[in-house]
């Protein structure tokens, strides 16, 4: 199957998310879709996979114009998309999810489906127990299941949105092997939306770059075998960055601030969790300091951060903040004293769908009963300007793109917090936006704030942390000398080698 997109246009209000996109994807090719946040790559992929219609333009499959609406229709036409958060049903088992959305008719034919599931997982080296509930699976396994499910539905084009977020290096190798085989052996088209340039260079045959809704370039990737030296990778990366941003980005370094007095300490803290065997964790954070928490998703770092912010139960141990014992305080009490927690899910935990930007500003403005809408309006305008948010004050928050929501969230943080506890503050953001967010955060460090954050991006951890703690299955290991740690070394620690 070959796919051609012709003159695709899509507008969201004043934003031209896709502006006359013309592109062809040929069978057997793995194509990277690159672009900074808001460049329009997700929009394009959603149009192709039927999640939203284009305003204008045609989709051609094997040179025939195909008209479909809805993901089910797209799958019937052989196009399936793997979302960033796999769309599975938590309470179901692996097998039930595999069947779900598939066969017609009342009888589910479990035995047959199970055989098919085992056959497909064996072919790609996936380890999927058909009778495990989805809730027990790692993100990587849920992805594997979703891929197999789409294949069983007869998909010939597979779209993956940021598939390497939150999975280990080993799991990534398994995934990439499977994708290569799908393209080479079965002639499928694999489209990879990603910010991780290394992944794109490693996996893709060619790359399509979008910028501000326009297609700005196509590029063949170097062959992924022995020719892929570090010099070639670095050169390719630089060329891609130039295409994405229209300029070359200098290597990022961060200013280091004077480390002040302790602001926060955990003393033999044990957070309560049913799945993990959490070990006591002790940690002291000083003013101006940035603490990075590394680890695969679900290794205990998220739980620890939430326990520190008093959003999760504590089994034993003590917390001190700003000179006071806070083991039994509520989050709100801590918030009022300058401890702010920022969650990874923007619209789930952080922003409120249905409220406008102005209303968000008003919420965090002050405690007075009467809202001074005039000053709130001015403050909103100032924030939109300062934080370079693409959106209007009267827009509801869900109308903004993910990157802009993240900017709003950062903009809502108090100017002078004492401690910020941030879950994946740059998740899903492109290099430029991520840097910009860090500039904003580090400014606060310069004014004496401390930061505890976690990330699945090892480079981010190494670049911005003063100290790094690695979590593995509820245990913690402090990386001795961050200045001298390599990303490679950190990768091994995350795998539990300490």
């Amino acid at each position, binding site marked *: 199957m070959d796919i051609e997109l012709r003159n695709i246009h899509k507008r969201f209000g004043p934003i031209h998310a896709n502006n006359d996109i013309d592109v062809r994807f040929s069978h057997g090719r793995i194509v990277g879709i690159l672009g900074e946040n808001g460049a329009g790559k997700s929009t394009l992929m959603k149009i192709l996979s039927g999640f939203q219609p284009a305003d204008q333009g045609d989709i051609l499959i094997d040179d025939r114009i195909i008209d479909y609406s809805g993901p089910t229709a797209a799958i019937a036409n052989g196009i399936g998309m793997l979302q960033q958060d796999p769309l599975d049903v938590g309470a179901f088992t692996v097998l039930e999810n595999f069947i779900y959305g598939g066969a017609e008719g009342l009888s589910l034919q479990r035995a047959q489906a199970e055989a098919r599931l085992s056959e497909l997982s064996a072919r790609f080296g996936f380890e999927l127990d058909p009778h495990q509930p989805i809730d027990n699976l790692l993100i990587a396994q849920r992805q594997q299941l979703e891929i197999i499910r789409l294949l069983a539905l007869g998909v010939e084009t597979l779209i993956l949105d940021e598939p390497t977020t939150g999975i280990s290096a080993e799991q990534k190798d398994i995934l990439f092997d499977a994708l290569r085989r799908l393209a080479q052996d079965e002639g499928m088209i694999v489209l990879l939306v990603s910010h991780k340039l290394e992944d794109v260079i490693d996996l893709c045959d060619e790359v399509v770059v979008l910028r501000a809704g326009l297609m700005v370039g196509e590029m063949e990737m170097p062959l992924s075998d022995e020719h892929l030296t570090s010099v070639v990778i670095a050169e390719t990366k630089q060329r891609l960055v130039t295409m994405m941003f229209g300029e070359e980005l200098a290597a990022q370094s961060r200013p280091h601030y004077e480390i002040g007095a302790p602001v926060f300490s955990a003393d033999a803290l044990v957070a309560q969790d049913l799945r993990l065997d959490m070990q006591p964790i002790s940690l002291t954070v000083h003013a101006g300091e940035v603490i990075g928490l590394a680890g695969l998703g679900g290794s205990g770092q998220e739980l620890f951060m939430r326990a520190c912010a*008093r*959003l*999760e*139960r504590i089994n034993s141990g003590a917390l001190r903040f700003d000179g006071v014992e806070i083991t*039994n*305080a*509520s*989050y*709100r009490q801590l*918030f*009022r004293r300058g401890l702010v*927690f*920022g*969650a990874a899910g923007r*619209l*789930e*935990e*952080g*922003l*409120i*769908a*249905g*409220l406008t930007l102005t*209303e*968000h500003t*008003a*919420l*965090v403005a002050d*405690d*007075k*009963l*009467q*809202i001074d809408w005039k000053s709130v309006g001015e403050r909103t305008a100032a924030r939109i300007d300062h934080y370079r948010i693409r959106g209007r004050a009267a827009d*509801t928050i869900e109308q903004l793109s993910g990157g802009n929501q993240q900017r709003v969230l950062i903009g*809502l943080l108090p100017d002078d917090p004492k401690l910020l506890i941030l879950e994946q503050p740059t998740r899903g953001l492109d290099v430029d936006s991520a840097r910009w967010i860090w500039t904003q955060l580090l400014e606060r460090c310069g004014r004496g704030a401390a930061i505890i954050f976690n990330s699945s991006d090892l480079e981010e951890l190494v670049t911005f942390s003063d100290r790094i703690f690695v979590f593995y299955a509820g245990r913690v290991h402090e990386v001795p000398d961050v200045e001298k740690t390599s990303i490679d070394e950190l990768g091994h620690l995350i795998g539990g080698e300490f």
Partner: protein
Amino acid sequence: MKNPRAIGIRITFLLLPIAISLAIGAALVIAVGRDPLEVIDALWKGAFKDTRKIGGVVNFWIPLTLVSIGLVVTFRAGLWNIGVEGQMMMGALFASWGAQYIPLGESLAPLLHLLLIALAALGGMFWGAVVGALKIRLGVNEIFGGVALNALVNVISIYLISGPWQPRIGGSAQGTEPFPTPALLPEFSARFPTNIFMIALVIAAFLIVMVMLNATRWGLNLKAVGRNMRSALLLGVATERTSLSAFLVCGALAGIAGSYRVLFTFDNLRPLASGGIGFLGLLVVLLLSIRLLWVPLIAFAFAAILTGSTRLQIALQLDSSLAGVLQGMLVLFVILFHGVQEVFFPGTLADDDTVEDSATSVSSVVKENP
């Protein structure tokens, strides 16, 4: 609302559910061998034939509007306050206690009325606070808590009526002895038998809640908590206090509504004195997708139809529950068509439609202190 097509669709979706429920109602009437026009005539006469009748409509409108205003507040906070009926009843109980035991004579009647209304508000707040505390502290869903408390207050009222507050002669479970005259709210006149002070109170409550919801931090906090309690907490909103305050406000208004039932509509405490008005309030508010502005008007229409329906029995030998059937269908169809419009014509909804909608989904508990 810029293009004519969208306006057309909006008007269609406003009128269509009304037309369909009227049509089905008419079909029902024809099926039992009556003329629908006769029914409309009877309803109209039953509600508006003279000022006495209109007074009856107003007497229904007062408590219905009060609870509906209160329910807008709890819905805004994402709470399904099914317990509103019990909060009315608890208000009625508190007012009944005061009416029997506060020894103020005829000369101090206005002061007594104020005291009784305040007591009723307190009673409603108390019962609302129990639902709120159960939800916030123990994670009991407010729907379950509300249903349980509704049942409980009914048991308490029957105990009081057949026990401590039993009439001295001929005691039964029918009701307490009539309250002393100074405690009863006076009629404006025999020709227009309603209480002017309460009407003023309803209007004041409407205006105050309107301002509080739309212009204050409290209103914004309610909205934030109702739409996403987790995010609201992380943004620094006192989520527990906000939820509780919604129950308190709704409870107070429901309690006052309850006092009107026992101090005016009846002259004593009876079992189920609240008369299902709290539940009817839920329908009024759902019909309006939680927009406060139209509450008094729709409550008036409901009150008129229900008051008028008593005449169906007398004039046409039709069961007066026909009016209830009509209202039920109307609410169902309005909600149904709202959903249809949302799915098939998402661009045509009024600005605040979608905003209020999701607040009617049941929210889960987010504790400030795990």
